[in-house]
C-alpha cells in the first residue's frame, strides 16, 4: 500500500472527526457543568440542520444562516433547560436519559409536521477540491478541519480567559463552594446548556450542505457523540477532541484496511477503553 494513500486517508479521517468533535463538545460540556447527559443533543443537531437550511432559503447567505440557526437552537436549548431539565438536576442518570429521550421523540415528529417527512437539501457550499498527494481533497473537508480547530480554540479561550469561563469551571469543580462564593447557578447552568446546544446546532448546520436534513437524523449522531464523550472522559473537552480524532481516524483507516469490520469499530474502541481505563482518557476517577 502506497504510504501517500494512508496519509490522505488520515486527513479525511481528521475531517470526519471534526464533525464528531463539534457535536460531542456540546454534549460533554453540558454534562461537565450540569451533570446531565442530554440525549436530545442529537435532536438539537437535527434542528440546527433544518434551521440553517430554511434560513438559507430566505437569506442565501450560508455563514449567516449557520450562526443564526445555531443561535435559534441555543435558545430552544435554554427553554428546555429552564422548563424541563432544571427539574431533574440531581436525579439519577436513567431519569435524565429517559426525559431527554422523550424530547427526541417529540422533536422528531415536530420536524416532520413542519418540514415534512421528505429529506431536504440545500445547495452545496464550499464546492470543489484541491490536489493533495495526487488526490482530490474536497474543500469541504478542509473547511471542516478549520472549523473544528477554530471551535476548539474558541472553547479554550472562553473557558480559560473569560470571567464566565472561570465561573463555569468553578461551579463544575465544586458547586457548593461556588454557590457560597456568590455565583449564580441558575444563570450558569442555563448558559452552559445554551452553549452546548449552540454547538449541537452548529454541527447540524455544518453537515447539511454536504448531505441533507431528514427527520431522525440525530439518532445516528447521538450514539457517536456518546461514544466519543465517554472515551474522552465525561466532562472533558480536551478528551472529546482527542477521542473524536481517534474514532475518526480509526474509521477512516478501517475503511481502507478492514472494510468488513467498520460497522463495529466504534463499539470495539468503546469497550476497549472502558475495560482498560473506565473513566475515559481524561476523565476523573
Amino acid at each position, binding site marked *: 500500500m502506497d504510504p501517500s494513500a494512508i496519509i490522505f486517508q488520515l486527513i479525511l479521517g481528521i475531517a470526519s472527526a471534526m464533525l464528531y468533535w463539534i457535536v460531542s463538545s456540546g454534549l460533554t460540556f453540558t454534562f461537565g457543568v450540569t451533570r446531565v447527559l442530554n440525549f436530545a443533543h442529537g435532536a438539537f443537531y437535527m434542528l440546527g440542520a433544518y434551521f440553517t437550511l430554511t434560513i438559507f432559503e430566505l437569506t442565501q447567505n450560508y455563514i449567516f444562516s449557520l450562526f443564526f440557526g445555531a443561535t435559534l437552537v441555543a435558545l430552544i436549548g435554554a427553554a428546555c433547560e429552564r422548563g424541563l431539565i432544571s427539574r431533574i438536576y440531581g436525579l439519577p442518570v436513567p431519569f435524565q436519559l429517559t426525559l431527554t429521550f422523550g424530547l427526541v421523540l417529540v422533536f422528531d415528529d415536530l420536524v416532520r409536521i413542519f418540514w415534512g417527512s421528505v429529506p431536504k437539501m440545500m445547495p*452545496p457550499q464550499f464546492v470543489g477540491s484541491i490536489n493533495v498527494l495526487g488526490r482530490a481533497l474536497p474543500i469541504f473537508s478542509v473547511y471542516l478541519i478549520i472549523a473544528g480547530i477554530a471551535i476548539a480554540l474558541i472553547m479554550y479561550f472562553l473557558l480559560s480567559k473569560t470571567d464566565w469561563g472561570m465561573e463555569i469551571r468553578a461551579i463544575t469543580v465544586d458547586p457548593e463552594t461556588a454557590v457560597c462564593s456568590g455565583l449564580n447557578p441558575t444563570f450558569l447552568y442555563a448558559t452552559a446548556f445554551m452553549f452546548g446546544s449552540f454547538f449541537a446546532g452548529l454541527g447540524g448546520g455544518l453537515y447539511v450542505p454536504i448531505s441533507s436534513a431528514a427527520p431522525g437524523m440525530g439518532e445516528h449522531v447521538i450514539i457517536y457523540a456518546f461514544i466519543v464523550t465517554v472515551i474522552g472522559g465525561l466532562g472533558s473537552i480536551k478528551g472529546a477532541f482527542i477521542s473524536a480524532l481517534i474514532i475518526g481516524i480509526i474509521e477512516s483507516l478501517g475503511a481502507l484496511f478492514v472494510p468488513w469490520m467498520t460497522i463495529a469499530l466504534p463499539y470495539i474502541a468503546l469497550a476497549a477503553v472502558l475495560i482498560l481505563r473506565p473513566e475515559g482518557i481524561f476523565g476523573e476517577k
Partner: protein
Amino acid sequence: MAEVSRREFLKYIAALGVGLAIGGGIGYSARKPEVKIVKKGAEEVGGKIKEKIKIGHIAIFSGPFSTYGELQKRGSLLAVEEINKAGGIMGSKVEIIYRDSAAKPAEAVKQVRSLVESEGCDFIIGIDSSGVVLAVAEVMPEVNKLLFVTHAATHRLTEELVYKKGIKQVFRIAVPVYQDGIMAAFIASKLPAKRWGCVHPDYEYGYASWELFKKTLAKLRPDVEFVGEAWAKIGTTDFTPLISSIMEKKPDGIHTVEWGFDLFTFVRQAKQTGLFDAVKYDGGYAWINPMGYSIDAMEALKSEYPEGCWVSGRYIWMYPDTPLNKKFVKAHLDRWGHFPAYSGETSYTAVYMIKKLIEMTKTLDIDTHIKTLEDSTVYSPAGVRFIRKKDHQAVYSVPYGQIKHDPSYPIPVLTNLQSVPAEDYYRHPPFKEMPPFRELYKKVLPKA
C-alpha cells in the same frame, strides 16, 4: 338501380366488415384505459359482496426513511379515491388504513395482526424493507389474507418463502433485486469499463445486489475485474474515507445501490472527491445506481446528479408510453403535485388488482383469488406484468436510462432507455442457475 353482382356485394360487405373492425379497434383502444387482469376462463361479474372492502397498507412512516411511506401512500390513496368516486368495488366502498412499520419486523408483524384481526382488513399491501417483509410473510398463513408486496426487494421472499416454503398468500408486484444486480450487469456489459468497484450500504440489500451483479457480469464480460468494495453503514455522515479507499483501487466503473437520504450524501460527496470523473467515458459515466431514479432522489438532487449516469427504479414514470401510464402520471401529478414514485405505482396497481380480483371472482375466498392471480397477466401503468405461478413474482421489464437535465421538467429525465426482456434477467424456478439466460443479451442491447 344497376344490378349489383354477388362479387361486388361481397366486396362491400367485406369493406364494411373491415371498416367496422378498424373503427371498433380504434374505439376500443381509445376507451378509458384502466388497470385490468386477464386470465383465461375468468370473467367479470357484478353484485355487492360486503359493505366495505378494507385494505391495510403498511410502510415506513417514521424515522429517517419516512419518505417511503409517503410515496407509497400517494399511489394507494389515489387509487382508492378513484375507485370510490366511480362507485367502489361492485358497490362496496373501499377503505384503506395506513400503519407504520417503523422499519422494524416485530412492529410490522404486530400491525398485520392488528389490521386483520382487529380492524377486519381483507387485504394487506405495502412493506418497504427486506428484513421486515420476510417476517411479515411468515405471518400471512396464520392470518390467511393476501399480501401484495409493493417495494421490498429481497429475492429470498419469492425464491424461498413462496416457492420453496409454499407461502401462497404472498404476491410481489415490484421487481426485486434482479433489477439492482442482474439487469445492472447487463448495462455494465455494454460499457467500456473494465475495473468495477462498488459503494454499497452495509446490509443484506447491498450484499445481494453486489453478488448478483458480479456473478452476472463475470459471465457476460470475462475480461472485467472487480477491484474493490466499500461498505457504508446506514446513516453514514462522511463518505469521503470510503470513496477515497475505493479510488485507491483505480476503478473505471462504479456500481452502487445506495438509496434514500444516504444517496443524497453520497452523490454530493462523490462529486467533491472526483469519483464521477474517475468513471467518465465518451457516452457518459460508468456509474450504475439502480435506485437512482427514485423520485425522492430526483427531487432532492435535481441537476446535481450528473448527466450521463445510468439509473433505474422499480418503475419509471416515462415508460412505457401507454395511455394507461400517461393517465396515471397525470392523475398523480394533479392530485399530489409530484411525479409518481415507483412504490407509488406498485401501490396503485395493487389496489386496482384487488378491485379487479373481486370483480372477476365475485368472492373474497382467498384460494379462488390465489388461483386467479397465478399465471395471470396484469395491464398496469408500469406495463404488462405476468404473475408467475411458482413464486408469485410479477414479471415485467423496467429500463435503465441515462440522467438528462431537461429544463422543461422539475426533475431530471432519462434518455437512452435500455430494456432487456424480463425473462432474461429475472431468475427462474427452481432458481439453480445464474443469469444471463439464453445469451440474448447480445441481440437486445445496442451499443451504449
